């Protein structure tokens, strides 16, 4: 079997085994799947080092006319995406073993995980749009089943995810068919379309919808927050947080850079940037006011996609490099955050921010890893999130897109604001009494979190290495980003960021701060006193002030338009899924009313139908 094919076939076949493992032995299935995922990782490392490869086999001629070529192609870009797919797979499965330990879940979970790896590898390696679409839809279906393994309310969120992603798949199918009709080929490496005529524009927009819905950008984002609460954190970390982002943005980059070659400043580029900007700002506003940790994280998962879409869509090489680097960074810190949320959930039994607090001492590893990831997502130097956002800012400056620049920076600030809330509500603040006995999670669950946190730091301080190794070779024109001597600079403008030097300065600053703290205000900066209200001493446990309340002003004091938006967040009034659902229901009820069960009505339809048929045939033939 060819090496490219084996990476798809092996996990797919291996995924059959866990079906037959009984529930109570699911750990066995977990370890087995971990081994398979590790094999995939090793293979993808080897492939990454092995240079370009391609494989194609003509399978059959559908209907005698649709040649179905199973074409796979490995080149730099797909190799590095594949590598990270495998890394996240290993981490998620490792985490799942501990996370699912005491839960009543079937071993089938691991089958779906393995099949997901297989399908994701298929998407990455596919060189034929039809093959890509098939794996793409298989991923969607697998997400549906994985989501359905969640807690209460899972069936609704799974249905929503499948519906929204189904819409995107349908759009992609239509786009691909349009391409096939106009160009006569579906081989991606041989396909080059100039987006001029309406057909190409329509095809591009349809494919774009497919890509951003998978990645979770607005307006096709609503499945991500919906599924956040009920879905197991391991799945959230694996699929919506990392894999779907990687694949969605990978596909977006493939179509907008390779196939359609969208130029900077064109209408389609502007459209993509607007979609990106809107996603950044609206999703982060929604995230600000959430009360549930997983839901809040999921809105950030949406918001961050905005940066990538904006970067890749701008058509400016630096911003594209930044966007793709952000795709990688986002996958790293976002899955770290979800894994941390899962750890908290496992120990506390809830992810409602109002009920949590003071976990920093109880779960120090989770705290530190989540704090690092939170700094990264907020774009605080020297973490990796900053490095990629910096490149996107540079790109926006270069293209003179000041509005988008402001939106991007503002979104980053709001992200920080909402993560201050998360860190405060979960890890700092007052600890409810009932969590006194909470312990840190098992090491098997800590390991992925630690690994991801370390990656966050490394990719920030030594940003030139991942850029040099992974991103820049994948982008034509990426060599404009100068990464010599440990700095990241852009050649035409003089934006300059030296992670090494900055980190040194930051470390010095922190040490200075610690020194000041040590020599001046040391000792009790906080004392616990019971509150005294109306002559009664209140129990502090009853009047805990959750961190979420700081953010009430956001919903209460902004204008009515924003207020409506927030009201929608919970009820979903502005959510396209609900609006179309309601409109559709109107049509359905009308049709149902016509079918009134009266035989004479039905007979009348037949006679009228026959009359029209006869008229058409006799007089228009």
């Amino acid at each position, binding site marked *: 079997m060819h090496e490219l094919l084996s990476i798809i076939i092996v996990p797919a076949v291996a995924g059959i085994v866990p079906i037959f493992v009984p529930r109570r032995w699911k750990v066995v299935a977990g370890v087995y799947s971990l081994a398979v995922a590790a094999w995939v990782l090793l293979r993808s490392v080897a492939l990454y080092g092995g240079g370009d490869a391609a494989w194609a086999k003509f399978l059959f001629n559908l209907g005698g006319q649709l040649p179905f070529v199973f074409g796979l192609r490995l080149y730099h870009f797909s190799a590095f995406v594949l590598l990270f797919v495998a890394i996240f797979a290993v981490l998620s499965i490792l985490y799942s073993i501990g996370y699912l330990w005491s839960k009543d879940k079937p071993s089938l979970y691991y089958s779906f995980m393995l099949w997901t790896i297989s399908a994701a590898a298929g998407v990455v390696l596919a060189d034929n749009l039809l093959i890509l679409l098939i794996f793409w839809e298989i991923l969607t279906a697998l997400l549906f089943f994985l989501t359905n393994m969640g807690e209460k309310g899972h069936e609704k969120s799974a249905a929503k995810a499948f519906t929204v992603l189904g819409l995107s798949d349908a759009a992609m199918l239509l786009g691909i068919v349009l391409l096939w009709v106009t160009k006569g080929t579906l081989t991606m490496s041989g396909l080059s379309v100039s987006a001029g005529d309406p057909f190409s524009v329509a095809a591009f927009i349809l494919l774009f919808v497919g890509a951003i819905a998978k990645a979770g950008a607005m307006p096709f984002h609503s499945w991500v927050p919906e599924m956040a609460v009920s879905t197991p954190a391991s799945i959230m970390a694996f699929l919506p947080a990392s894999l779907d982002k990687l694949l969605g943005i990978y596909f977006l980059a493939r179509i907008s850079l390779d196939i359609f070659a969208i130029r900077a400043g064109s209408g389609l580029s502007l459209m993509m940037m607007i979609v990106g900007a809107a996603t950044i700002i609206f999703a982060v506003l929604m995230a600000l006011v959430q009360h549930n940790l997983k839901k809040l994280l999921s809105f950030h998962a949406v918001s961050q996609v905005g940066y990538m879409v904006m970067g890749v869509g701008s058509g400016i090489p630096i911003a594209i490099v930044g966007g793709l680097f952000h795709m990688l960074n986002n996958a790293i810190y976002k899955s770290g955050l979800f894994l941390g949320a899962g750890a908290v959930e496992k120990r506390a039994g809830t992810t409602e921010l109002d009920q949590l607090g003071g976990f920093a001492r109880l779960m120090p590893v989770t705290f530190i890893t989540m704090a690092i990831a939170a700094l990264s997502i907020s774009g605080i130097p020297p973490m990796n999130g900053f490095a990629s956002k910096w490149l996107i800012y540079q790109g926006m400056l270069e293209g003179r897109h000041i509005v988008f620049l402001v939106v991007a920076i503002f979104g980053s600030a709001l992200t920080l604001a909402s993560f201050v809330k998360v860190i405060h509500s979960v890890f700092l603040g007052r600890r409810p009494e009932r969590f006194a006995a909470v312990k840190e999670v098992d090491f098997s669950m800590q390991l992925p979190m630690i690994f991801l946190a370390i990656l966050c730091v490394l990719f920030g301080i030594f940003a030139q290495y991942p850029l040099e190794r992974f991103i820049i070779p994948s982008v034509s024109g990426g060599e404009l980003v100068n990464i010599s001597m440990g700095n990241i600079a852009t050649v035409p403008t003089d934006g300059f960021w030296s992670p090494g030097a900055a980190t040194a300065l930051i470390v010095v600053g922190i040490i200075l701060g610690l020194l000041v703290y040590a020599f001046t205000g040391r000792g009790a900066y906080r004392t616990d006193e019971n509150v005294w209200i109306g002559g009664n001493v209140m129990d502090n446990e009853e009047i805990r002030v959750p961190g979420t309340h700081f953010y009430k002003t956001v919903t209460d004091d902004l204008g009515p338009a924003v207020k409506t938006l927030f009201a929608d967040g919970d009820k979903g009034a502005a959510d396209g899924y609900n609006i179309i659902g309601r409109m559709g229901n109107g049509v359905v009820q009308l049709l149902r*009313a016509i079918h*009134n*069960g*009266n*035989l*004479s009505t039905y007979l*009348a339809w037949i*006679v009228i139908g026959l009359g029209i048929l006869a008229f058409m045939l006799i007089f228009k033939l």
Partner: protein
Amino acid sequence: MILYFLTLVLFVMGVYCLIAKKNIVKKIIGLVIIDYAINLFIILIGYRRDGVAPILFKDMPMEEFARHSVDPLPQALVLTSIVIGLGVLALQVAICLRLYEKYKTFNMSEINRLKG
């Protein structure tokens, strides 16, 4: 031609009866009328003026027979069609009776639990 026209009138009457009448029994009668109209039509297809029965006797010359006999096939068709119609009618009446047992009515517009 007038015969064809009368058949058509019969047919339309049947259709009217089937659609406009609410009583199940009348609806069935309407169907039967339609059936008869079609059967008559088929017979008319094979009819020829001054035709003889399509039976070839030993002493009759073939050409003579072909010139005078009516088309035998429609008659065979009609026989089959009548038999089928009878079968359908029997089933209709049987179900009609069972319906009356359950719903206590022959009014078809009151028999509409299934809708939407």
